[in-house]
Structure formats: structure tokens, C-alpha cells
């Protein structure tokens, strides 16, 4: 049954540009349907701000169905808000109550500079993927589907890791600003599969060291797993750590033969 929430107070981080100091500004939402998504609530606010002739709140969003990884937002101190296993776009106002004050902040990490208001630049993730988050495939006739047998549990584990949408909630939630869950998910989904084996060790070495250039270090708090909209387990981080250790020794051996 639809109900209407009334008297919501939003404290939203406003920042005019990358170099601006930024500040919280307070907005009132007199009423909103509990069926509205969190982003639709912000849309309603923005419509009003545009109508009043003031600058609307800038925030990232795209597919609004939890698969693109564009939306973000630190809501009441939690990445993607209070609901487990969903991105902000799938958070609905029914999770809140009339009279609530909701604090909204952008992701904060030196690798994610704020562009404006709640929008951050997450291209550091692209740098990590460029370093090895792919397999090299020769071109030619398209191979038949399912040509390479893969044990079902392995395929499932790889798929769980591949569910990562690259939203950056892991970095945002991490007390250290580490990107280990993102990097480990990208490493794991390729390193578990037969297609990923040829580049397995140079991949993990290149990706971990690129991650090092931008992000903090993992101290195993587990906050990333709790914040991840795809609920990716920190077990992938252990897998990455093990592969990195192996890679350092294997690659050293391999390079010594040149």
C-alpha cells in the first residue's frame, strides 16, 4: 500500500567544482511517496530547485536498475544507503520514515576527486582494468559457445566476482580508502576461468601495482563486503593476495630466463 512520507530534511553536500571547499546545505522535502526511489526523490528536489531558478544537485546516475554502477552516494554514513545488497538507485523511500533527516555525501577518496556536488571521478578504476582486467583473444572465426568446459562451481565463483559493477562503494566504505575488493573481483573473475590462465600472473601483478598508485591498503575490516551492492565476498581479496604472492615469485623466475 502506498503511503506518503512527510517532512523529510535533506543535508546534501554541495561543492561548486573540484577546487571548491564545499559545504552541507539543507533542503526540505514536504512530502514524497514511499514508492519513490531515492534518486527519484532527488529528481523531485531538482525539479523544484530548477523551478526556483537555483542550481540543481549534481549526482551520478544512469540505468537505475542496479547494473551499471554509475550511482553512488554516502547516505547517513553508509555507501548506497541502509539497504544491503543494492545500489542507491534501488533504495526506496519506504526504508525511511516521516520526519527523518538524511545526510548525503559524495564518495571520499583521493583517487575519486569530486567533480561537483555528489559526483566523483572514478576513472582510477579504469586505470586498474586497463592494467590487466581483460583477456587477450585472437581475432578470427567466432568460436562455438561453451567450447571450453568449465566446472560448474568454478563458473559460479567467477560469475559471483564478475557481478562487480565498479560503483566504488568498496572504496567509499573502506576506512582506508582501499580498492582491494574492486581489484580482487576483477582479478578473480578472470583468474578462475581457463580463458584467463595465460595472463593470470602478469594480470594480478599489473593490476595490484596499478591499484597501489591510487588507493589505500586493505586492513581486513570487511566494510567493503557489507557495502557492496552485489555482495561480493572478501574471499576474493584473499584469492588476489595469494595470486599476487605466487605471481611475484613466478614472474621473477620467468624474467630471469630472458
Amino acid at each position, binding site marked *: 500500500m502506498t503511503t506518503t512520507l512527510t517532512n523529510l530534511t535533506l*543535508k546534501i553536500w554541495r561543492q*561548486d*567544482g573540484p577546487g571548491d571547499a564545499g559545504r*552541507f546545505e539543507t533542503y526540505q522535502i514536504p512530502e514524497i511517496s514511499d514508492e519513490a526511489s531515492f534518486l527519484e526523490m532527488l529528481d523531485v528536489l531538482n525539479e523544484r530547485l530548477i523551478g526556483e531558478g537555483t542550481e540543481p544537485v549534481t549526482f551520478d546516475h544512469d540505468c537505475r536498475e542496479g547494473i551499471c554502477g554509475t550511482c553512488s552516494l*554516502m547516505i*547517513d*554514513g553508509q555507501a548506497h544507503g*541502509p539497504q544491503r545488497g543494492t545500489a542507491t538507485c534501488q533504495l526506496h523511500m519506504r526504508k525511511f520514515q516521516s520526519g527523518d533527516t538524511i545526510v548525503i*555525501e559524495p564518495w*571520499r*577518496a*583521493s*583517487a575519486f576527486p569530486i*567533480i*561537483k556536488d555528489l559526483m566523483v*571521478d572514478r*576513472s582510477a578504476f*579504469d*586505470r586498474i582494468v*586497463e*592494467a*590487466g582486467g581483460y583477456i587477450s583473444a585472437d581475432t578470427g572465426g567466432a568460436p562455438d559457445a561453451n567450447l571450453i568446459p568449465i566446472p560448474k562451481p568454478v563458473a559460479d565463483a567467477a560469475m559471483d566476482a564478475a557481478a562487480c559493477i565498479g560503483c566504488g562503494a568498496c572504496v567509499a*566504505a573502506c*576506512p*582506508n*580508502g*582501499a580498492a582491494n575488493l574492486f581489484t580482487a573481483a576483477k582479478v578473480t573473475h578472470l583468474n578462475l576461468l581457463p580463458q584467463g590462465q595465460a*595472463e593470470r600472473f*602478469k*594480470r594480478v*601483478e*599489473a593490476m*595490484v*601495482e596499478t591499484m*597501489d598508485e591510487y*588507493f*589505500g*591498503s*586493505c*586492513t*581486513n*575490516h*570487511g*566494510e567493503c563486503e*557489507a*557495502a557492496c551492492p552485489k555482495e561480493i565476498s*572478501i*574471499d576474493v581479496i*584473499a584469492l588476489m*593476495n*595469494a*595470486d*599476487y*604472492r605466487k*605471481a*611475484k615469485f613466478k614472474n*621473477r623466475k*620467468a*624474467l630471469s630466463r*630472458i
Partner: protein
Amino acid sequence: MRDPTGSVWRMAQTLSRGPVTGTAKPAGKRKPFLLDLYSTAVGKKYVMAITGILMILFVVGHMIGNLKMYQGVDADGVYAIDHYGEFLRELLYPLLPKYGALWIMRVGLIVTILLHIHAAYGLTVINRKARPVKYQSPRDYQIASFASRSMRWTGVIVLAFILWHLADLTFGWVNPDFEYGEVYRNIDATLSRWPVAIFYIVANVLLGIHLFHGTWSLFQSMGWNNPRFNPWRRWLAAGVATVIVVGNVSFPIAVLAGIVEHPGVS
């Protein structure tokens, strides 16, 4: 793209770091292997884990050794724990000179603890740089435990305790009634003082909290991960922490309760 203030936006970049190779760099351009490995955050975590294991083994051994104080006096009228101290000083004698094995272990422990501190310091610097501007509103942590978030504080306090502990029972500087080699007497002399006993109890509880996160965390850092055994990692961490805290806290309590009492100490 430019924003109204005129600075270039960093959006929509496709490449900023030159050609992508995804290959291991040639060995010649790198630092020596172990230093190269240590220069990465993951490498520092391996060091944290391995030195952590060594110190866990030490601290368990140290606690078990101290249990000898409950054995009282041996047949020859000397306290069992004084015999044990003598045994450590003469370990592997005459293969090694007296104190030889002891000093090998001491130097090993000092190097271990320095590496643990250096790696922790390096990681802290990396983490501070990764988020120079903090969240301006309160964080709502979901599963990060008190233990995991207080590692730096518990670590620093435990380090301060270790220094005091050496000054107290190894060198005797802060022990009013210190007699070299009379371990039982020295323990009674120092822990009969209430403030010292409370300091020992608090420090060991903090050590237990440090170990509770550290023992679990080292498996993640080293990548020792197996779904069949993963649930045991928490139990092992709780077990190590409990054994250390119960064992070590029992000593000051035993002294205060008069269970450990040396006739020469008032």
C-alpha cells in the same frame, strides 16, 4: 571539457598513463626482489602477517613459560620459574655459549617487531593519503569491529607496555626490589603494586583485542583462504586472544591475591 571555473575536467579520459602493457616490468628496472615486494601495500601486509605469526608464537610461548610460577618451589628449593630462566639463558649450551641461543631469539624478535612497526607505519601513511578529506558526516560502520578499527591504538599501547615490561623484569630499572635471576621474587615485587598490576591487566586485554583481529586478518593478508576452513579462522582468533588474556591476566591477579608470594618481598 571545461567547467565554468576554467579547470580541465578529468572526465571522459580514455588513457592517461601511456600505452597499456599489462606485463610484468623487466627485472633490471626494479629494486631488489624483496624490497620491490615490500614497496607494495600487499607486500607490506605479507610482512605484517608473517611477523605477526612469529610474535603470536612468542607470546604464546612466553605465557606458557610464565605458568611455571604456579609450580612453586622445585625439589632443590629453587623456584621452578627461576630454573626456567636459567634454562633459557643456557639453552643449547655448550653447543652455543651461554646466552647465545637467548640472544639469537632476542635479536630475531627485535627485528620482527621493528619490521611489524615499519610496515604498519608505511601502511598508515598510505591510508592517510588515500583519504585526505574525511567524511564530513558520521560514518555508520556495518561490520568493522572495535578490534579492527583500534589496531593502531592497541598496537602502540602494547608497544609501550613491552618497553615498560623490559625495564621492569629484564633490566630491573623500574622494579624497586629487583634481584638478577630471581624471577619469582621480581614478579612478586613488581606486581604487588596496584597501579602496575592494573597496567599489566589493561595492556594484556588490549593485546588480546589486537590479536583477535590480527590472527584472523593474517589469513586474509596471506591469501590462506579455503571455504572449508574459513569459519575456523574466527574461532582460532578468539581462542588465541582468550588464551593469552586469561593466562597473562592471571599473573597480576595471582600476585595480588597472594597465590604467588615471595617471602623476601614485603
